């Protein structure tokens, strides 16, 4: 989880789009690849998603994120490619291992979908500040308390990681072994985790008192620090997305 999110601060058209439209884009982009499952269509959607990333000037940042999903993609290619139940059309043979077309065709479709899913989420997470997304959701009626919970995770994690380093060192200095046989390693899991857990649960007491003094439970209407909405193109994009979704559904039903 590192210290922060994947957000990349840049000035681009995609950064100027409001977070909710981008959220809708993710759902539509992922959804249509499951409604219409032909290779060329999914490839087309992936191309559009990559184009959006390029417009957002964040194309180069998507590759490490795709890298995180490589295990899954390899697994899809190997398992579906070699073991797919439908084995009728022989494609070619490697040594004595027969390779069938159906499996690889299916594996390719799944891989394209996964890539599109990762890239579509990439559009959202690379070009949207989490604060902006949460604020937009609160404006749409999400509870501000849940908004606080979402954002505070990002603040609490680095603190907990800092404490963890100290605790690991402290336990090691008391003779805890983190290397060695399996049993030794299992045994040191609890002494590592328990102090951090205790510490962080203890902190929640202080934090909740601090919040309540500052009116966290107040029932009066919340106001925003930034009243003006600086995002653009929201309406056009939402209409465009709704029309494309409807068109894809119609295509699936009628053609």
């Amino acid at each position, binding site marked *: *989880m*590192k210290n*922060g*999110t*994947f957000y990349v601060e840049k000035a681009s058209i995609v950064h100027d789009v409001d977070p909710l439209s981008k959220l809708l884009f993710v759902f539509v982009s992922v959804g249509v690849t499951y409604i219409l499952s032909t290779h060329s269509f999914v490839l087309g959607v992936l191309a559009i998603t990559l184009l959006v990333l390029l417009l957002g000037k964040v194309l180069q940042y998507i590759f490490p*994120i795709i890298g*995180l*999903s490589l*295990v*899954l993609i390899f*697994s*899809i290619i*190997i*398992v*579906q490619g070699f*073991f*797919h139940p439908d084995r009728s059309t022989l494609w070619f043979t490697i040594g004595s291992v027969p390779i069938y077309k159906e499996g690889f065709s*299916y594996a390719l479709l*799944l891989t394209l*979908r*996964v890539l599109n*899913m*990762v890239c579509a*989420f*990439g559009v959202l*997470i690379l070009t949207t500040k*989490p604060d902006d997304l949460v604020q937009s959701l609160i404006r749409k009626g999400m509870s501000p*308390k849940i908004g606080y*919970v*979402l954002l*505070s*995770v*990002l*603040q*609490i*994690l680095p603190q*907990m990681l800092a404490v963890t380093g100290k605790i690991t060192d402290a336990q090691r200095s008391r003779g805890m072994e*983190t290397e060695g046989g399996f049993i030794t*390693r*299992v045994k*040191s*899991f*609890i002494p*590592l*985790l*328990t102090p*951090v*857990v*205790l510490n962080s*649960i*203890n902190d*929640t*007491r202080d*934090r*909740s*008192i601090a*919040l*309540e003094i500052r009116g*966290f*439970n107040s029932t009066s209407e919340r106001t925003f620090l930034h009243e003006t909405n600086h995002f653009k193109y929201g309406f056009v994009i939402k209409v465009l997305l709704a029309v494309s979704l409807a068109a894809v559904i119609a295509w699936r039903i009628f053609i």
Partner: protein
Amino acid sequence: MTKQSMWSLKFSTAALVLIPAAIGINYLGKLFAELLRLPLWLDSIGTVLSSMLAGPIIGALTGIINNIIYGFTASPISFVYAITSGVIGLVVGIMANKGWIASIGRALVLGLVVGVIAATVSTPLNILFWGGQTGNIWGDALFATMITHDLPLWLASFADSLVVDVPDKIATVLVGFLIFKNLPKNLTRMYDSRSEIDRL
């Protein structure tokens, strides 16, 4: 102050603040499991713990928010499993409330049930999104073996999830149970919406 049921949607501030802490614990569990090279994920200890402390709704929220945050900061694939995480929190919360964390034996049963339910919820997601695999080497090896022997896809995929989820969830619930039982009472009471004292 009146007694509240475990389904109450009126969260105390302490219970809400528990959510980010629990998500941090999830992350640290995973981190330590990797550091110690344990063969399990152990990435939902915080979710389990928050369900035991503050009930099914907070547990489910912890699970869902955990995967959303994880999707934003580590891997977008985890958005897909937000439902599974939410259900884990829900099940642990309900069963803990019904007395299934009274002893270590019962906690084992709870772990088993959570593992089977997690696998059941993950299977349709795995089939829909990646044709049935989990991305775990051992599970996928079993999956490949089963579909070569012409067993139905859903069965192979369910077995794939099962061999991965059950041991992991049993270990997770046990660790959560051990930590929960060893927490000082003045901390656990803070989240217990049924008790009338020490509530913030």
